[in-house]
């Protein structure tokens, strides 16, 4: 399976069935701040399990992005994919 699809499916696993779409808004529409914490921390471990790569999703880079990577499932998927790409190429 394509890497982005795997990341997206890991995110879907954390969401209720009706929110399993790439354009689903995450924060603050579907998730409150605690929900976002839970999602991101769980995803760091899921990514580690799946790809054997450690990433920190809530980094300075994420916070300083003009457009929040936590806005939708799609933006989060893209952001994690970039982090993974960089780690794999290190």
């Amino acid at each position, binding site marked *: 399976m394509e890497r982005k699809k795997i990341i997206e499916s890991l995110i879907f696993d954390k969401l209720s069935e009706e929110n399993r779409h790439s354009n689903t808004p995450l924060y603050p529409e579907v998730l409150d701040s605690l929900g976002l914490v839970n999602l991101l921390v769980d995803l760091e471990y899921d990514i*580690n399990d799946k790809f054997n790569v450690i990433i*920190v999703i809530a980094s300075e880079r994420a916070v300083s992005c003009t457009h929040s990577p936590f806005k939708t499932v799609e933006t989060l998927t893209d952001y994690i994919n970039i982090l993974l790409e960089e780690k794999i190429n290190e």
Partner: protein
Amino acid sequence: MNKNSVMLITGTRKGIGKSLVNYYTQKGFEVIGCSRKDVNFKFDNYTHFCLDVCDENSAIKLFNYIYKYYNRLDVLINNASIASMNYCMLTPLSKVREILNTNVIGTFLFCREAGKLMKRNNLGRIVNVTSIGTQLNLEGEAAYTASKAAVESFTRGFAIEYAKFNITVNAIGPTPIKTDLIKSISQNKIDSLIQKLPIKRYSEFTDIYNVIDFFISKKSDFITGQTIFLGGV
């Protein structure tokens, strides 16, 4: 916590950290420790890492090891600490940064990463080490006590955020204890400090074990955000 619980202790090369390794490995804990330099001791059930507690990448790798090897972390004791007794006007800024990096940034980083791992089991105990200096306002200790005041503030802040995950965060503030941390302080100064205490004596390692045992006990799941100072301070 049960026998075979997994415990991480920072600053284990000597002093309080080393004594905690000895005590908790004997109690059957799986103990992981770290310090900047290697240790000259070995205990059963003890694994050591050489790292600087304020280095994010090294810390993340250490927590990844704990996750992969044990799949859980039950207890974190943030013990790593440095002090520099000096009048403010004679304290180099580099020393202040060093103190803040180890005592404040290190504590924050390890609390943050421990929380992520403990959250997976919805259970955990974190104990930070502060100092009675935050209460006594001693001359020559401004940078050190300010760093420990930050540790106490972090303790309360993390306690609130981590309560949802059944992770308790508390702190212990020992009185002077005969370790390298106080060896650069004159005997007169230590004696005068001890005279200010309601119970006028040094802390013993057993005093520290007693409070940490209380904080990490299964029965202490309703105790969080607290700092216990020894000696009646």
